[in-house]
């Protein structure tokens, strides 16, 4: 059973359809990137998942239960949705102790998570004086307080310096390696590409891709072939069921195909191959193409 299941989820705010019949699953032991442009419905989905908003229809469950049905939510799900959820007059330690008190967690856990996120020295400082990066770390500390099996983080890299980004990537990988379910939203694929195993891409409230990162990367790769008769090679490859096109300089470009298949097809047709090379489109361009194509179709 998947840890997180979003099933036919729809959320409407008056005339605005924020999330439209959304379905996907997030599995334990992996970091899943929840990607989409700003306004694509990511945060709305996460709020519904965490019981902060009600769906118009459909469901969002964790281990088969809605967040509000979980017997001990903080020990089961850690969530960091926003870096501005602190009273500026309270210290980092006081903020976490309030959560620990409400949920029956031992107060020593507060010192442990502050140490874990690198805020041990700032434990007694008022949050009003924190930088955005420090607030992000404090949000993450709140999510980790109950040592949960499921983590839901909304744009956790915002405001972090390069060292912080590197640290959080390592932390998320290690949490997933422990068998936890980690769902991380971002509007930049490149931001999470070094961290995620799976990706769910959202556009205008719809899932437009639910796949592994490697499969997504594969989708963005092309094999380029040069031959003495490119028009014939195109015909041969199309007949073999390969998605192919002839580019301006006489090169044949095949998307999502294996170089060996192209080489064998060319050899079978008696066509000499002068060059056969693989080119990977950068992930951000691929992500942009995915989202942009979908938005154009929707328009």
């Amino acid at each position, binding site marked *: 059973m998947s840890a997180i299941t979003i099933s036919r989820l729809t959320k409407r705010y008056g005339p605005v359809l924020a999330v439209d019949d959304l379905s996907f699953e997030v599995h334990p032991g992996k970091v899943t990137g929840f990607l989409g442009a700003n306004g694509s419905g990511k945060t709305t989905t996460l709020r519904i998942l965490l019981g902060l908003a009600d769906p118009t229809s459909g469901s969002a469950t964790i281990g088969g239960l809605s967040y*509000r049905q979980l017997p001990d939510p*903080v020990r089961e799900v850690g969530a960091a949705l926003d870096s501005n959820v602190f*009273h*500026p007059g309270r210290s980092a330690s006081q903020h976490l102790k*309030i*959560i620990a008190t*409400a949920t029956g967690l031992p107060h020593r856990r507060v010192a442990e998570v502050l140490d874990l996120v690198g805020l041990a020295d700032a434990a007694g400082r008022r949050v009003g004086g924190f930088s955005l990066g420090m607030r992000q770390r404090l949000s993450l500390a*709140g999510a980790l307080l109950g040592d949960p099996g499921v983590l839901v983080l909304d744009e956790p890299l915002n405001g972090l310096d390069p060292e912080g980004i590197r640290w959080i990537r390592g932390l998320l990988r290690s949490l997933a390696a422990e068998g936890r379910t980690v769902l991380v939203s971002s509007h930049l694929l490149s931001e999470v590409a070094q961290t995620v195993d799976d990706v769910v891409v959202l556009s205008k409230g719809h899932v437009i891709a639910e796949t592994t990162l490697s499969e997504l990367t594969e989708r963005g790769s092309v094999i380029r072939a040069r031959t003495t008769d490119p028009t014939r090679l195109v015909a041969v490859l199309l007949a073999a069921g390969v998605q192919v096109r002839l580019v301006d300089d006489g090169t044949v470009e095949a998307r999502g195909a294996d170089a060996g298949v192209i080489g064998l097809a060319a050899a079978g047709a008696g066509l000499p191959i002068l060059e056969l090379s693989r080119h990977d489109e950068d992930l951000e361009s691929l992500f942009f193409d995915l989202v942009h194509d979908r938005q154009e179709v929707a328009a």
Partner: protein
Amino acid sequence: MTATARLVRAEVRKLFTTRALPVSVAIAAVLAVAGVLIDALVAGKTGTPALGSTADTYQMLKVGALSSVVMLIIGILAAGGEFRHRTIMPALLATPHRARLFVVKVAVVAVFGAVFSAVIFGLGLGTVVATLAAHGIHYLPAATGRLYLGSVISGACFGMIGVALGALTRNTTGAIVAAIAWAIFVEQVILQAVAPSLEKWLPVGASMGLTNPPSASALAPAVAGLVLTGYAVVLLLFASRTTIRRDVG
């Protein structure tokens, strides 16, 4: 420890970990003492009742209005502040049971309001007793005990009304300005001029039946207590519906 008991402790911790509380307590304490001392200084002058007279001592014991106003503000900050600073999000993640969270917050603020009002009235009363004793007067009016109890009830009720207003408006500044504008302009200026018989049935008018000395124009203390509690309950019912149903984020 039960979930509700843990939540009570968390809400108490929330109250005591912001500057609003010590600042409010300090201001109320200073005003309570200063009010009595100033009154004692001007007593018997320019036509005011003499020091030690029943009328003057009652005037000095009108401390309940002060603690009620402060509790109204503390209640608004306790509930509205959760939305202003968005601490409602971690609060609801820790306690998804919204009704329980709301009831506990109301109860904690109400109890704090009662204790706070008792302390402030006690401080004012102590200053009155000491001031009168310094002038060789050892007398307190008969209704002193009733004013003490009335102030405690009024403080608790205004704390609850504050929580309701904070939760309904989700805007601390707007709620405080609106509440004070209502109390001063609508009730005390407009309605007292236009419909004086109606004013005593409204929240501030009812609270005067509890915190002010006996008067023919005010509600009887028991009736005033019921009316003020009724306002608090009705506003809390409205606020609980929106707090429980509305999306957060």
